[in-house]
C-alpha cells in the first residue's frame, strides 16, 4: 500500500503570537514554526500501520516549505521514524490558505500513485476550512475525517471516527481515499538525534518546484483584521507566593460554600 502524507508547518503552539505590521496576518518573522501536530499524528499512524502489516508499504511525506521552518530536519525526522520517501515543495508563499495548499497538494498527488492520503485533521491556520475534504473532492476520491485509528481489512481501510462526547464509529473505506487524522492510535514516537543523523545520510529529499503545480484560486474571502481575544471578562488575578495563592483559593472556595 502506498500512503502519501501532505504536511504543513504552523506556529509553535507554545509561541506568543502578535499581529504583523498590516494587521491582517500574524507576525511571521519573529515566530517559531513547527510541523502541524495533527500531521505528526498522521505520520505516526501511517508508520504504525506499516509496522503492523509488515507488507512493504511505502510511506511518502510531502512537505510545503515556505522557508520559515526547518523542513529538511522535519523530513529527516520522519525518515528516522520509518517514512520511505521525502518530498519537499519549496518556495511556497508564507501564510498560504488551506484552499491553495489543497490545490498544490492535489495537483502533486494527481500525478502520483497512492492508495491512501493521511492528513492532519486540521491546522491552527485553517481559517478557510480543512484539508482532507478539499483534497478528497479535488482527487475525486472518498474522504473521512477525525480519525483515531487505521487498519486494513479485506483491501479496505477500517477506520475509527470520533464524534462528540467520546462516541466513536467504525467505517470501512475503499481505496484510494483521503483520511483526516485526529490522533494516532499511539502517541507520536520520539526519535533520538543519532537516528535522525543516520536518516540524513541514508535518505534523499526529492525537490518539487511549486511553479510546476496548480496553485489554485484564492480563498474567496479577505482578511479584514486579526486581533487578540477581547479580554473583557478576565479572571480576577490572585497574586503572592504559591502558598499565599493557594490559601486564597481555599478561602474563595469557602466563600462559595465549598469546604476543603
Amino acid at each position, binding site marked *: 500500500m502506498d500512503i502519501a502524507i501532505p504536511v504543513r508547518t504552523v506556529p509553535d503552539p507554545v509561541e506568543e503570537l502578535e499581529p504583523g505590521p498590516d494587521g491582517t496576518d500574524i507576525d511571521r518573522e519573529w515566530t517559531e514554526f513547527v510541523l502541524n501536530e495533527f500531521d505528526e499524528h498522521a505520520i505516526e499512524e501511517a508508520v504504525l500501520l506499516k509496522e503492523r502489516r509488515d507488507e512493504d508499504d511505502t510511506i511518502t511525506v510531502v512537505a510545503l516549505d515556505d522557508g520559515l521552518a526547518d523542513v529538511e530536519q522535519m523530513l529527516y525526522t520522519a525518515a528516522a521514524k520509518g517514512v520511505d520517501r521525502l518530498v519537499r515543495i519549496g518556495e511556497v508563499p508564507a501564510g498560504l490558505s488551506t484552499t491553495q495548499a489543497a490545490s498544490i497538494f492535489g495537483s502533486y498527488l494527481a500525478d502520483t500513485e497512492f492508495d491512501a492520503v493521511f492528513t492532519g485533521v486540521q491546522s491552527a491556520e485553517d481559517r478557510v476550512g*480543512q484539508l482532507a*475534504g478539499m483534497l478528497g473532492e479535488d482527487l475525486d476520491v472518498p474522504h473521512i475525517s477525525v480519525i483515531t485509528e487505521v487498519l486494513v481489512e479485506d483491501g*479496505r481501510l477500517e477506520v475509527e471516527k470520533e464524534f462528540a462526547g467520546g*462516541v466513536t464509529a467504525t467505517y470501512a473505506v475503499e481505496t484510494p481515499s483521503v483520511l483526516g487524522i485526529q490522533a494516532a492510535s499511539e502517541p507520536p514516537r520520539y526519535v533520538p538525534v543519532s537516528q535522525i543523523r543516520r536518516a540524513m545520510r541514508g535518505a534523499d529529499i526529492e525537490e518539487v518546484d511549486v511553479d510546476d503545480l496548480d496553485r489554485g484560486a484564492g480563498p474567496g*474571502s479577505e482578511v479584514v483584521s486579526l486581533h487578540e481575544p477581547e*479580554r473583557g471578562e478576565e*479572571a480576577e*488575578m490572585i497574586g503572592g507566593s*504559591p502558598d499565599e495563592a493557594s490559601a486564597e483559593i481555599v478561602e474563595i472556595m469557602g466563600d462559595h460554600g465549598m469546604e476543603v
Partner: protein
Amino acid sequence: MSDVYAVTEHQAPDALDDVSYELLNAGRSAADDLGTDLVAVVMGADTEAYVDDLGVADRVVAIEDDTLEEFNPLGYASAVETVVDETDPRLLLTSVTSIGMDISPRVARSTDRPLLSYVTDIDVDGDEVVASSQLYGGKMFVDSSIGDENAILAVSRGAFEADGGREDGAPEVEELAVEPRETGIEFVERHEPEAGDVDITREDRLLAVGRGIEDEENIPMAEDAAAAMGAALASSRPLTDNGWLPKNRQVGKSGKTVQPDLYIAAGISGAPEHIEGMKDAGLIIAINTDEEAPIFDYADYGVVGDLFEVLPALEEQAD
C-alpha cells in the same frame, strides 16, 4: 433573494444535537440582518422527529433517504451539495464538529463557494458579511469579509447559545430528493464511550491538568492534589492522546462536557476545544505560567504561576 440555510446534525436517531440549535440561533440573527428567511436543513432516514423544535426557522428542508440513516461523509456532503445547487443559499451555515468538518470543506470545493471556518461571530453590514474566526488555539481572532458573495460559514460549537435556537413549532417542511451516490464508505458500527473508573460529568469538583504537567511521571502529584481538594482528576486532550490518563478523563470537544461546582484548570492554556467542555462550570480557577493564556478569559480567578509549585501548596493547605 437567496436565504440563510442551517445544516442541522444528529447522532441519536430521534433528536437533533444541541449544536444544531446553536447554529439556528446564529442563523436567525444573520437572516434577520440580511432580510432573508432562515431555513433549517434536516437529513436522515426518518426526519420527522427532528422538526418539532424548529420554530425559530421560517422553513425546513428535509432530505430523507435510507442511505442517510448513519452519518456518511460523502452521502451527507452530496445531500448538502444538492441543497446548495437547488436553493443557492446566501449563507450556508454548518458546524465545526466531526460531522461538519466532513461536510463543509468538501461542499465548499464541489460548489466552488468560499468557506470560513471556526466562526464565532457573524456581522452583517448592508450586503456585506464579515465573520470572525477563532484560530491559533484561541489566541487570535481573524475577521474575514466575504463581501456580498454566497458562502459557507462553519460555526464553532459553543459560540452561540442553543436556547436561542430552540423554539416549539414545526414550520412548513419541504422535501428534497437526493440521488444516492456510491460513496465508497461503509458504516460498520458505533461505539459508546467506556464508563471507566470515574464519571467526571458527575463530579462536583474537578482538577484538570494539561500540557503544563509536562510528563507522565508528574500525574501522581496532580492526583494527590486533587484528592486533597476532594476533586477528581480530569485533563485536556494532549494527556489522553499520550496515554497518560484514560480517555474518560478528557474534558472538551472530543471528550466530556462537564459542569462541576469547582473546576481548577492547571497548565491548560484554554484552546477552544477545551473551553467548549468546561465553560459552564460553576467556580473556575486557572493556574498557568503564561499570563496571556486564553483560559484566564473564562476563569473567575487566576493564578499566574507554576503548577508544580501551586498544586503541592494547595494540597498542603487542604490537608
